C-alpha cells in the first residue's frame, strides 16, 4: 500500500461516516453510505484484496444502496428531530 494515499482515503472515509450518521436527509445519508462503501472498496483494492473490493463495490455500493432507496421510497425521507 501507499501510506500517503491510504491516509487521505481513510480520513475521507471517517468524515463520510460521520456525515452519514449526522445528516438529517435520509436520502443523502444513503448516498453517503454508498460513497463510504465505494471508498472502502478503493482502500481494499489498494490493500490487494481485489475480490473483496469487487464484492463490496457490487454489494455495498450497488445492491445495499438499491435496497435502502427502495425502502426509503416506501417510507419517509426526512428524519425527525
Amino acid at each position, binding site marked *: 500500500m501507499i501510506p500517503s494515499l491510504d491516509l487521505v482515503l481513510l480520513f475521507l472515509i471517517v468524515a463520510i461516516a460521520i456525515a452519514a450518521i449526522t445528516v438529517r436527509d435520509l436520502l443523502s445519508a444513503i448516498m453517503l453510505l454508498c460513497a463510504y462503501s465505494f471508498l472502502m472498496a478503493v482502500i481494499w483494492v489498494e490493500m490487494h484484496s481485489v*475480490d473483496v473490493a*469487487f464484492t463490496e463495490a457490487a454489494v455495498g455500493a450497488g*445492491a445495499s444502496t438499491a435496497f435502502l432507496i*427502495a425502502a426509503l*421510497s416506501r417510507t419517509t425521507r426526512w428524519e425527525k428531530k
Partner: protein
Amino acid sequence: MNTKNSEAGEGKERAGDVIVETISRLMVPFIQLFALYVIIHGAGGPGGGFQGGVIFGASFVLLVIAFGIVNAGDRFPEGANTAFMSLGVYIYAGVGLLCIIFSRGAAQFLNYGFIPLTTHFEENRALGMDLVEIGIGITVMAVVTSIFFNLAWKREPEEGGEEE
C-alpha cells in the same frame, strides 16, 4: 422510482422517458453478459459466483428503475424467481452429496474430486468449483431480485395474497 414522490413504486402514471428506456434496454444485455463473464471467470481472476450474481440482479434493478416496477415485475414472474432461488442451492448442496454418492461413502461432503467429470482428481476439483460458483450465482441473482421487488413494490392486498 422517484423517492420524492410519496406514491413512488406504482410507476403507472409516470410517462416513460424515451432516452432512459432505450439506453437501459440496450445496456441490460451487456450487463448480463458481463455478469456471466464474472461468474465464469471467477476461477482465473477477481470475481466469482457471488459478485456475478449481484451484477445480474442489478440488471433487473435497472429494468425496474427504467420501466417502473409494475411493468418490470410482470416480466419477471415470482414463481420462476422462487424456483431459481432454490435451484442454485440445490446445485451446490447436490454437488456436495454427489461426492458422497459417487465415492460410495468413502469421501466427505463437498469433496469435488470424486465427481467423475474428467480422469484427473485435481481437474475434477476445478470443475466442481465452477459448478458450485454457477449455483451461487443463480441463487444470489434470484435473491437480490426478489428482495428488491419485495422491498420496492407495494402490492395490493388481494394481489399479493394469491401467490405464496
